[in-house]
């Protein structure tokens, strides 16, 4: 059972209270995008074995979207942070680096 802290209401919620929303920080391509760029936006995913940045929604709580950094092998949750950002904040990256010294880093 995954436990994630909603960064808005501060509730430590178990995963059945939350809905997963896939990879985070996928850059949306505009109308001027090439077909390759739009394909990448729609379909291509990093799908890493290890540190993964992902979207969640607190559906059974405040209803808001947020981000989480999680290890896809151990299922360890490193941190959660608000949705209104294009990239993970520095303190989240630092928290991951302290626990995964060999991590290749963001992006």
């Amino acid at each position: 059972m995954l436990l994630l802290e909603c960064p808005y209401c501060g509730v430590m919620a178990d995963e059945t209270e939350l809905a997963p929303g896939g990879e985070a920080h996928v850059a949306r391509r505009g109308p001027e995008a090439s077909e390759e760029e739009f394909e990448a936006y729609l379909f291509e995913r990093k799908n890493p074995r290890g540190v993964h940045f992902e979207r969640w929604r607190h559906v059974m709580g405040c209803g808001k979207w947020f981000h989480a950094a999680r290890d896809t092998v151990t299922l360890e949750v490193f941190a959660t942070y608000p949705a209104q950002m294009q990239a993970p904040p520095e303190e989240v990256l630092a928290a991951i680096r302290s626990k995964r010294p060999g991590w290749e880093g963001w992006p």
Partner: protein
Amino acid sequence: MGGYSALRLLREGLRDQRGWRPAWRSPKLRKAYDIVIVGAGGHGLATAYYLARNHGITDVAVLEKGWLGGGNTGRNTTVIRSNYYYPESCALYDLSLRLYEGLSRELNYNVMFSRRGMMILHHSEHEREIAARTVNAMRLNGVDAELLDRDEVRARAPLLNFGEDARHPILGAVWQERAGTGRHDAVAWGYARAADRLGVEIVQNCEVTGFIVEGGTCKGVETSLGPVRAGRVGMAVAGHSSHLAAMAGFRLPLTSYALQAFVSEPLKPMLDCVVASPAHGVYISQSDKGGLVMGGALDRVPTYGQRGNLPVQEDVLGGLVDCFPAIARVGLLRQWAGIVDVSPDSSPILGPSPLPGLYLNCGWGTGGFKAIPAGGLLFAHILAQGAHHPISAPFDLTRFERGRLIDEGAASGIAH
């Protein structure tokens, strides 16, 4: 190394079983091969076998990080079926089913393909309309299908929950008579033995750590046992496809999830077909040993840990008990998970990768086992010719760029 037969079994029985030899060799890794296949699961081994048998290419190595058949080939629920919607999918999966029908004889290895039939239940009028559409589509595509009503379902599986208080009342089912189950390990072992006998080398405990790229073309792989050069490289690594793609410098439209399965303690015969219920999100069959083999939905988040997560276990087992109230007190023997690579349209990816010289067999998601013979046959064709087989062409990676998806997730209602 002789063939397997009833006569041989009798002879070895009389000789204290001393005549059996290993079913395949354990060769040392050489420096170069015509073709290197990454992943000795069902698809990789079948590919090697068909390369040798159909194309006469025997200078082939199959590299395996762990042990042969230890990934999803040894972790699935052994269901073999071809009840899909689109013509492209029916052509692919029915080819596989037809190959399974003759596989034990072809490989001289009993894969225990048991054509016991499969029913996909429906529980509402709306589901019944979709079920009728599925049956019609399957028949138009040349696949056998029947629409069963409630009484016909009851005749085939009387222990299902036909009670008034059932959460999802049973209205009927889509029946595929030719579907069934197989012995999953035997499929890997049978292909391994047959490929080995034709000269293919299977190297276990050999992890691929990178690709040798020269002039923008894949010329081989780096492994934990040293570099290996190859004319063409094929990867058939299921849930770890994105991981290998990252080494090769590209991304795939795949997400890896854990798919859990369960087996119960052995019971007297109680179910002689495969039953799936999309409304409950579960499927179940009974193995020849008597264990109930059960599965359900994917875990909810991307995972590479082959364990599985508790909320999904509760959903799956709860759904099964609602389907079959009689099994509520049956003990589970084992629970496990495999890592499946799910594509956006729930269809596989076969063909060239963005890196010339490297070819893809991935994206089978939760349905890789049933597709092993066809996946191997088509991938062997692609690796031997460097070009698509007519059946594999629609499943090329470029379908995502062109928007020509084969969306079985929506069309045949498979949950994942």
